[in-house]
Structure formats: C-alpha cells, structure tokens
C-alpha cells in the first residue's frame, strides 16, 4: 500500500457512521486504518520503529487489529515519542497523574488537534443530539488559565465546552461550590435540555454531596462524566448508586459515563443504555489475557488495550493501558450500537515490589 493511500485512509477514518456496524464490519474498516497508522509512525518516528522492531518483529504479517503493535501507556511517561518535527508541535498534553508521579506527555500538531475535536464532537453529538445546550461545568474556570501546562483535566473541560453554550463553572478558584450559580443556572434553564459535565468524583463531591437536599430541579440535564470510580470506591458508590443519587437529588434521568485518556484525547468510549462502554467505529478495545497477552473472550477480565484512528502526530493509535477491563458483549442487538461493550474494572493492582533499596524515600512516603 502506498503512503498516499495510507493518508487518505487515515483522513477518512473519522467519517460516519460512528455506531451501528457489527464487530466484523468495524474490524474490516478499522484494521487497514490502524495498519496504515502503524506504517506511518514506523516511517516517521525512529523511536517507534525501534520499539516495534524489538517487540513485534512480525507485525507486518498482521491480518487483524489484535495482531498490530501496541505501546504500553507508561512509555509516554518515560520517553518523547512523536512522529512530527518539533516545529509542528502545536501543544503538549500532559496527564494529570497522581501527585508525585511522572506525567504522560504527548505531542499534538494542528492536524491531530483538529481530529481530536472532530472525534469528540461527533461522539458526544451522538450522545447529546444536535444543538448546543446550556452547560454547567463541575470544575473551576481557573484550570483554563493554569499556566502549569495543559493537563488532561483541562483538555477534557475545554474539549467538552465546545459542546455547550452559556458555560457556568460551579466552583470558585478554591474549589468551593457556588450555590447561587447553581440556583441561577437551574432557574434560567428549568425544563430545557441542559448539559452538566464533570469528572466523576467531582460531580459526586461538589454537586451531589452539597446539593442533594437543596431541592434543585435539573431534570432536563444530561450528565456527562468521566474519570473512574477509584475515589468513590471507599464510599461504596458504584455507577448504579451514582445514577440513582442524581435521579433522586435533581431528577436527572440521563447520565453518560465515558472512558478516555490523555494519550488518546477525543477518542472516548461512551456508556450506552446497557451501562457498558462502547467504541465508536474509529476506535476499538481489546481486553488481553495477562498471562498470554492474547485477546480474552467476552466475560474474561484482563488488561485493556485501546485503539483509535484519531492521533497521527504521535503513535498513540494502539495503547496498552494499565486498567483492568472486561468485554461483556459483542454486537448485543439490544443496544443497536454494534461492536464490543466493555467495563473498566480499575487499575492494575500495584505489586509489592520494593523500590531499589530506598529506605529513606519509602519511609518518607509512609
């Protein structure tokens, strides 16, 4: 396949339909795109080429998505791996990470930035329908001016903001909720479609906790949230409990979780009515057996690999995450979405490996 063919394949990859085709049709469409992206990055990034040659020497014989190379996500914390010259770097996205850990860094050019926006807008358009709704953001607008770098959290907020209008930020700079803002937002848009966005634990902590008994009507709202359940596990809040509390407190019936990461901005997996996550047709998920690294059959948990046709400026099209996941169904007719439906089961448990000899640092953290 020529490089020109590859480029037109990659360019057309984000075209509709986004959902609907079955897994076989999705794979038939996605495999050539991801193979083209692999060739593109092998040609453009010496670092990527060397990794692929070392880890996947036979990759060119791949006949399915599962046989294509992937990068472990932690690599983006250790090395700069990009397929564009420095001059074309439009922005660098860093993962927020946990305090003290090294953040991931991916380098984005204008093309990839546009593709990220287009991907996110079309997936969320599918969830929210046409038109831009009044939007409540469960966060502070301070993150927009944060000069410490474009974190994934800020990137998420900025990305989602394009889907709404009349943006109201619920929190002040010190992360304190502003009740008057919430009341005004609810009153102004009462009964109308609204959009509420926030990271899952922030929606819990700053919207549900303080205002559950405030008698505020947000029944026209769709809540879009992301970020995982880790912070809420301690409080025994799972997805169903979270949804029930939103319904009880504000009359909210439409709640959509999504799964995405700094290394694949724009390419999000959204929750369907089956409460499972679904790939768009330009993305896919593979759950791998941690013993053999082969794909697991549905129902068997493993390590989640995410694939996406979105990034072209760095080889983030196929990433082995550090999240455990499970594919529950494939082509479940009840959803009408086609493809795999999966859940994220949390982070890989950290092993008890003791850092090299570090008596001091270990006690410091304790």
């Amino acid at each position, binding site marked *: 396949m020529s490089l020109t063919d590859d480029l037109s394949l990659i360019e057309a990859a984000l075209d509709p339909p986004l959902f609907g085709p079955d897994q076989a049709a999705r794979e038939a469409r996605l495999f050539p795109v991801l193979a083209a992206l692999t060739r593109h990055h092998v040609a453009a990034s010496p670092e990527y080429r060397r990794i692929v040659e070392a880890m996947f020497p036979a990759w060119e014989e791949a006949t399915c998505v599962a046989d294509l190379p992937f990068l*472990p996500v*932690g690599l983006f914390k250790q090395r700069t791996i990009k397929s564009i010259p420095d001059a074309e770097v439009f922005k660098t996205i860093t993962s927020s990470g946990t305090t003290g850990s090294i953040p991931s860094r991916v380098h984005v050019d204008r093309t990839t930035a546009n593709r990220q926006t287009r991907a996110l807008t079309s997936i969320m358009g599918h969830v929210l329908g046409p038109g831009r709704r009044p939007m409540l953001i469960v966060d502070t607008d301070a993150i927009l001016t944060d000069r410490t770098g474009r974190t994934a959290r800020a990137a998420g907020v900025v990305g989602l903001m394009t889907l709404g209008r009349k943006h109201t930020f619920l929190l002040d700079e010190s992360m304190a909720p502003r009740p008057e803002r919430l009341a005004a937002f609810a009153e102004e848009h009462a009964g109308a479609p609204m959009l509420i966005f926030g990271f899952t634990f922030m929606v819990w902590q700053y919207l549900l906790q303080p205002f559950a008994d405030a008698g505020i009507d947000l029944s026209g709202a769709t809540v879009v949230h992301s970020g995982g359940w880790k912070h809420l596990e301690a409080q025994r809040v799972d997805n169903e409990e979270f949804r029930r509390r939103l319904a009880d407190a504000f009359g909210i019936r439409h709640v959509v979780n999504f799964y995405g990461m700094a290394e694949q901005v724009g390419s999000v997996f959204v929750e369907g009515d089956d409460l499972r996550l679904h790939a768009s047709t330009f993305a896919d998920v593979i759950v791998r057996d*941690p013993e053999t690294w082969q794909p697991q059959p549905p129902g068997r948990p493993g390590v989640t690999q995410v694939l996406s046709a979105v990034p072209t400026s760095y080889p983030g099209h196929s990433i082995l995450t550090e999240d455990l996941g499970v594919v529950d169904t494939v082509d479940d007719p009840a959803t009408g979405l086609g493809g795999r439906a999966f859940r994220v089961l949390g982070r*890989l448990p950290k092993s008890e*490996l003791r850092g090299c*000899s570090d*008596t*001091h640092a270990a006690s410091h953290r304790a």
Partner: protein
Amino acid sequence: MRRPTVPEVRRLVPHPGVVDAAALVEALRDAQAGLRPFDPAVLACTADLSRRLRRHPEVRAHPAIGALAWWIRPAGIAVLQRHWEHLCDVPGIVRVPRGVVFHVPPTNVDTMFVYSWLLSALSGNANIVRLSGAAAEAPGPLLATLAETIEDHPAVAASTAIVTYGHDDAVTGALSQADVRVIWGGDATVAAIRSVPMAPRATELAFPDRFSFAVLDAPAVLAADDVRMAELVAGFVNDAYWFDQLGCASPRLIVWRGESATVDAASGRFRAVLGARLSARDEHAATSTVVAKLVHAAASAADGVVSAIDWSDNDATIATLTDLGRIPRDSPGGGLFYEARVDALADLVPYVRRRDQTVTHDGLTEEEIVDFVRTVGARGIDRVVPVGQALTFHHHWDGHDLLQSLSRSVQVDAGSRAAVPGAPEASR
C-alpha cells in the same frame, strides 16, 4: 521559652517502648564497655539464633532466612573469627571495637540488617539498627525470632537496640552521635542521611545503589549436562529472584562470552531451562510488574540500545542489548534481563562502571577472573562469585573488610626492648 522536644524513637528490641534517642546512644556506649571482639556472650547468642532459625517451621518458606541461619552457624562464625585473628596479627597494632554503631539497613533485602548487626556485634560494638516502618511490621519469622533470642542473652540485649522511626532528621542526628554510621540503601537514602552530621570522630560506611551482572561462558553452558544445567539455572534464579531482582547483587544483565552462533545456541538453551524453572515456581510476576518491565525494555529500544525484546515469558523478560556502552543500569526488577555478547572478557573492561558490584560467573577460570579484576582496576566491580552465590553475604562487601572497618587499630609501641603487644603470644 519552649523547651525543644527530645528526639524519640520506638524501640522494638529489647523491651519495646518509646525512648530518648540521645540517651539510648549513651546507654549503649556504657553497655559496650563490657564487650570484647568475639565476645563469648555474642558468640553464644549467634549460635542460639542460628539454631532457632533453623528449627523454625516457617523458615522453610523463606530461603533467604535459611541462608542467614546457615551463614551464622558456629562453623561460619569460626571462619570469621580466624579472619579476625588474622587482622589482629599485626605487630604494633591492637584492634579494639569502635563503640556504638548506627545501622540503616535496606528495605529491599530484609535479612541484611542481621548481617550488618552481627558483624558489628562480633567486632565488639554496641548497635542501633533502624528498621523502616514497613520492615518493623513485616510478617515472617525473622524479627520475632531475633527479638526472643536477644532478650535471652542479657549482655547482647544491653548492647543492642532495634528501633523504628519515620523520616526525622532530629532522630537521625541524635543516633548519628554513634561512632560509626552504616547506611544501606539507594543513592537518595545515602544522600539524605549524609546531610545529617555525625559526631566529629565518627566514621561512615555507605552501601548505595549498585548494578550487577552475570558473565556466562557460552561453550561451557552448551557443554553442561542436564544436571549441571539445572543447577546453573537454579543458582541464577536464586540470584535474581530471591529479592525480586532488586538486591544490589542480583544480575540484571547477562553477558555471554563466545562466538555469535555459540552464544545464540547457549542463550536459547538457557532461556528454555530458565522458563521451565520459573514456571514451576509458586510466585509469578504481578501484571503491573510485567508491564513495567515492558515499558523499561521498550524505552531502551526507543533509545536504540535494544534490538529485540523477548516478552513471551512474563517471569523473564529478556532484551538484547546492542551497545555495552549504554547499559540501562536502573531497573524495575521482577525479572528483566538485558543480554549482550563479547568475544573475550577483555572486551567488557571499558564498559565497567564504579556502580557495578557483583559479577556472577559460570565457566571462567580463576586466572581469567583475577586478570579481569586487575585490568578493570578502579573502574568498578567488588565481587566475582559463581552463579548462585550472588546473595551470599561475605564479610568483604562493596570493597570493605567489614570486621576491619567496624574496629579500630591502636598503635602500641612499648619501646625497643619490650615485647610487642598484638602479636599472637601477647594476646593469649
């Protein structure tokens, strides 16, 4: 005026409780006055500890503790005592203890604190051993058995304090009024503790991060019969996996000596036997460790120093190193091996660094080893031992003779006509 708070530590052994750190050093100094090198009280305690550990039903599950128990058995201590007598056999010199020794042992090798303590106690010193909170809480038979044994030997109990405290420079400072400070740990630990001043006349032994590798003679490995091969691989597994490959002496690089085709064949045979041995073990690498190893190997590939990564076995990830000048010396542990080839041992010499500690070898002659070590000289390497002996403690460690470093040489000269003290007949 507010009185400054007195630095306190939690003493675990003997008599658990909170004690004043400065007073502890002084109390130990008093107790030390009753001890001599290879004091019968310490020898009795050591023999007792060895016996109790070897009889302990749980020790079977902890091979490193079994190795410790064996190392400190009376016959092993007798070897140390002969070495001590040899050190003392210098005309005009009398060897005496240094006094109080403050030990900061590593967290990654959980038996090390006993070796550190014991060599110092045998040298006649009183000892403070600082365990991390995690080490103090860690389950297992070692600390409990040690505590019981020490408490049954009053002279040892009086001159020993095993303590724990968090990161607290005031406490470290108080305990650093000891006569010797022994730091085992990462470079960051050594730097952090070194920033705390010691008593003016105190000395320090520091054992920071090290890197270790194996040198295997490919023809020898190919020629080994199956029994010999199984022993070699079993020894290698002990070296690498007892402490999750995080022991300083655990090999992280395998250097093959031989022609390319021979090495390929030897490496293939070694990997096959290693894989079988590892799959038979009860413990396997956690998935997060496997992923961390992949990240490390892939980052090395990105750097252009690795041409192939064999990740077919989660327990042993093997990356083919193409540039001995850029050995990735940091490591996530858990069974990640870089592999390289040389035609001759001499080819390795330019790439040795001061950080390199233990060479575990198979198929090298003593003459080759001595020649190699002399050629390497000041570049690095503190030990060359057979495969399987990487973690076997020795009273020479990291280039120090520990019995010598933990004692003091007193020069004595009675004048030309007097007998020379310190000579064997005078010490009787």
